């Protein structure tokens, strides 16, 4: 009986460790400097995708959209940099920002390798998926964990912009599919 109790205890402890770490991975704890780094990185990644589209696309709708992505995400970066400078916070890279960068590196290679005919669809499909992912990260992770009120407010202010970008990308997605 004692043996059995020990085994039970071991199972409980093991499952706490396993599920606990899985949970932690899903919801990493981020400090404000880390949140600032994720925010800047997420925006920079989309500026970089736009740069590829601006050199590769021939479609005027796609070119206009890419220019808007470059301009808007640069404006958000400038706003974030101005805030962290004011708050004397230095953005600190972390697991989330590193994952964003390594995923972006793969996507960039795929976009560059796409044949010209397939490029617009690949770029816009990725914009839809990427904006969805960023919206869920900002709403589900960055806003709830941000400690500084101004940082939280900046993140909240960015959400409508991301959602308008998503709607715009989805509109282009339908337009491209019809062709």
């Amino acid at each position, binding site marked *: 009986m004692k043996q059995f109790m020990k085994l039970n205890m071991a199972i409980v402890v093991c499952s706490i460790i396993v599920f606990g770490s899985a949970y932690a991975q899903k919801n990493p704890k981020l400090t404000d400097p880390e949140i600032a780094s994720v925010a800047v990185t997420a925006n920079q990644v989309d500026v970089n995708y736009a740069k590829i589209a601006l050199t590769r696309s021939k479609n005027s709708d796609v070119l206009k959209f890419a220019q808007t992505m470059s*301009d*808007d995400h640069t*404006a958000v970066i400038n706003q974030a940099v101005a805030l962290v400078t004011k708050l004397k916070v230095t953005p600190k890279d972390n697991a989330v920002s590193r994952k964003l960068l390594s995923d972006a590196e793969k996507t960039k290679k795929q976009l560059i390798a796409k044949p010209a005919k397939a490029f617009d669809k690949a770029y816009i499909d990725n914009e839809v998926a990427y904006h969805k992912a960023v919206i869920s990260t900002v709403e589900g992770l960055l806003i709830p964990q941000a400690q500084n009120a101004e940082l939280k407010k900046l993140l909240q202010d960015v959400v*409508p*912009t991301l959602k308008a970008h998503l709607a*715009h990308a989805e*509109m282009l997605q339908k337009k491209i599919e019809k062709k």
Partner: protein
Amino acid sequence: MINNFKLGGIIFIYLFLLFFINGCTTPEENAINKGPEVYTVEIKNMKFQPEELTVKKGDTVIWVNHDIVTHCVTEELTKAWTSGKIAAGGSWKMAVENSYNYFCAIHEVMKGKIIVQ
């Protein structure tokens, strides 16, 4: 005592003037003599607020960009007119002669409407 009298007089004159001036510009009279009016549409959180605005012919509409990104105001059907870029914190105005559906040509999902009564 004299001071109190003086004060009372000043207050009386002030109240009299207030009443008199107000009397000259009652809202009803305003409505009769008024020239073109000025309306403001706030561009905020990627929306035109209000999205739909009813004005009289010749009234002026000012769009104010409160967002951190650049927007514009462009006639939707034929792009008959456009504000050009309205930078963050900037504004643009137009005297309105006709009803229009308009949109932001930079963020095509942002739409608004002006109705001339």
